């Protein structure tokens, strides 16, 4: 797999956009186990990319490398033109532009929903409190739970918590949003409310990278699907091609198991 192969599948218009995330030959080891093997891909501005693959394929590890929750050992990662190195200023800059939503929400349980959202804007972005709170309430409105602002996370359902987590990430006004299996910890009846918020976000033009098992979402929203297995990118393509006419045998096997 090379960058040129990956980009051939993208339309002309897409190719003309700026590169938001460039992953070039990224290697990652846990001890002697190689989790990522030369992962190479480019994600364009306003593009929605869904990363699929069986568990243990390295997709979560890859997405967590992009804002340095995990450290890659070889290769290059560029986010919006800034390279991730050990330089903390670069890491700070990238983290302030990249929002992340986790599988287990990771809301702060000891402060209210509104405080969860306003904490980083106030202390990292140095926004005045009043402005931050207005932004927080607007975002809660956007994710559909304005009435929950003064509750504690533990008093909310899983779906509501995940929507708060999305609002919290959006409050930093990021240019890129990373989703690490955002619906995997949810009860089935709550998955839709979270996916709806994500779809709305995608339509608004946010650059998104989503690790998920929701095939319906992938088919409907993704501009491109990246399929990974054993730490490698196996196949890249638009959803219609990927779901109906995959080229690789491993992709076919995966699809036959889940569909």
């Amino acid at each position, binding site marked *: 797999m090379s960058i040129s192969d990956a980009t051939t599948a993208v339309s002309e218009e897409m190719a003309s956009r700026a590169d938001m995330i460039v992953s070039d030959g990224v290697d990652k080891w846990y001890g002697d186990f190689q989790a990522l093997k030369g992962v190479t891909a480019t994600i364009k501005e306003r593009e929605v990319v869904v990363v699929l693959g069986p568990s243990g394929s390295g997709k979560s590890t890859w997405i967590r490398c992009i804002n340095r929750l995990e450290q890659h050992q070889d290769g290059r990662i560029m986010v919006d033109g800034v390279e991730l190195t050990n330089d903390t200023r670069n890491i700070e800059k990238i983290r302030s532009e990249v929002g992340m939503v986790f599988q287990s929400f990771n809301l*702060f349980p000891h402060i209210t929903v509104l405080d969860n959202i306003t*904490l980083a804007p106030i202390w990292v972005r140095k926004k005045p409190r009043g402005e931050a709170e207005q932004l927080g309430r607007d975002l809660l409105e956007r994710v559909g739970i304005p009435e929950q602002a003064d509750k504690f996370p533990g008093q909310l359902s899983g779906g509501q918590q995940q929507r708060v987590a999305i609002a919290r990430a959006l409050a930093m006004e990021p240019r890129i949003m990373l989703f690490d299996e955002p619906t995997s910890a949810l009860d089935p009846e709550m998955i839709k409310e979270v996916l709806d918020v994500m779809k709305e976000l995608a339509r608004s033009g946010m650059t998104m990278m989503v690790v998920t098992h929701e095939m319906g979402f992938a088919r409907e929203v993704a501009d491109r699907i990246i399929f990974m297995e054993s730490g490698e990118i196996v196949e890249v393509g638009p959803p219609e091609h990927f779901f109906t006419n995959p080229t690789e045998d491993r992709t076919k096997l995966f699809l036959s198991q889940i569909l």
Partner: protein
Amino acid sequence: MSDLLSSEIDLEKVLAGADEELAVRPDEPSLPPLEWAGKNLFGTGQGSIGAIVRGTFLTVIFAGLALLAYRAVLNFIFSENAGWDSVRINLRLLFTQAYPDENYTRVWVTVGVVAVLAGLSLGMTKVGPGFSFKRIATWLFSWGGLIVLGVLLREPSVLTDSNGETRFADSRGVELVRDTNNSLVYQNNDPAPSTGISALRENFGAAMGDRLGWWIIGLALLAIGAAIWFVLGDLRRRTTFVPAIPLALAGIGLLVSTTWWYRWGHYTFTEEGGFEYGPGELVATSTRIPWTIMFVLLVVAYLGGRLLARATASGPIRIGLSAAWLLAPFFTYYAILRGPIMDWAHVVSTDLPLWVLFAGLGGALLWLLTRPGLGEIGRILAVVVLAAAAFTWVGAFFGWFSMLQKVRLSVLFLGLTALLAPNFIGEARQRMKLVVGWVGFITIFHLLVTLINTASSIETPSEDFAGGFMVTIYVALFTMLFSFPLGVLLALARTSRMPLFRVMATVYIEAFRGVPLITMLFFFTVFVNIFLPGSMELSLMAAVTIAFVLFSAAYLAENVRGGMQAIRRGQYEASDALGLTTVQRTGFIVLPQALRVSIPPLVGQTIATFKETSLLAIVGVFDFLRMARDVVPAQTEFLGTRKPGLLFISAVYFIGAYAMSKYSQRLEKKLGVGER
């Protein structure tokens, strides 16, 4: 079957209106007393003889042991020669040692400050519904029952003759009298047998008659309890509440009011140094009036607190109240020990200029350091200030130059505050927060140092403090105040990524946890002065307080670290993903959660410290225990009378520890809101 139906209906109701108030459990009559006792105490109702035998056997054995212990305690408390006068007369000595009489108002001012703060805090706390009538009735039953049981169990009083001397008889009941040598003989001057003599006691009926007052109290409690229990019925018992704080205030009020009408007795030192006994009199006016004032202050402050809690600006008031609690130990310590003889020349020539220098220049420096876009220069400047602070300590240690301790500490504080500066970079309001915080802090610090360094006109028997319970309370308070931040810092250092911090904190914690507290106390009282630079000298009280702080901090650090380990990794990841700095992550996310998890062990440590202050008796401090164990029994009138004093201080320690434990339970419940 009907139970089943009703529970289904309830479930529906709950599901239908999840946001409405919770459904109340339906009326469910409790077991009749006999059936309850049979089931819970004698193992009936299981249809097994073995269970009955087992249950009855265990109940009889343990109830018997409990009753025996109860009887022994009561017999001692109420026995004629227990020597309670040694406690009554020495109450003031036990609590404040021989604090000068003419300055005693200062002690009352201290109690008054605490009463006002306590009242305000009580008024401003959000409390639950209070005690249910069910609980109150149970409580009345228990105490009424205990009192009646005690009245029945206690051995009858000894009989005395017209001179107040105990009467004795042999095993046949023939009375003995004292001869001129004060030994016991028969009426006809025959010598008494060497065995079978015991004090003559009243018969059971007379004894019960003597305890009429206790009968009335015990039966009245039982009757009120029964009335509440049977009149209200199960549902109303459980759902009718009496607010807890007014109930407690009423209790305290009742106790204080007894000083005006119940004849506790008037016991006091006389001018000549002896004691004056006045059983059957009202307590001294000098006790009655202050306590009444304290109670009034408490109630007024409580009502004021209730009003303030409704005020719009209750947030800042709460913060102010917390600050007042933090400053109270310093203020009251000062109020008790210092009648300042101000050296105004020194104040004008040294103290004021230094304050202006640190508040002004320090504030300006911090203002500069929080300027947006300052970048690395800010951090370098902060480190330079810290290095300068370190240099002043090193210089003082080797005696290169002399410098006021206050200046050295101020530079150190400035350096530490400067390190925080990057977190406050931003618009003017944000920057002002740090500057105002600094000026406020340095003002209080300089004020305290100046006040403490001022000579005092008050002379206490111990070199630098009053004794008794006051020592216990102050050592415990200062230990908590100082060891808490130190413990948190140690916990952070031990979990830090920087190996130097980690190793140092680990060595410190393991070293201090590995040494017995009493050893540390001896070390600090005897040896530390040898290691100090020439000009410094630690007083006994300062030395033991430092020992307590260092010791307690090591344990607190482990408790906090335990709390930090309970925080899930996701919390760290979410903080990092949001771009919070390490300091912000620690202060906003990690510590608040860690401290909440570690409340039970933290309070446990606090209670332990409170009780362990009694070790001070061994290293020569006149603390509460030493007063009861050594000082009172050394008085000629009470030579060797230790038991009542020790029992009394045990009760006081117990009340303190129990109150703290109850408070921590409430705190846990309150902070449980929003728990995962």
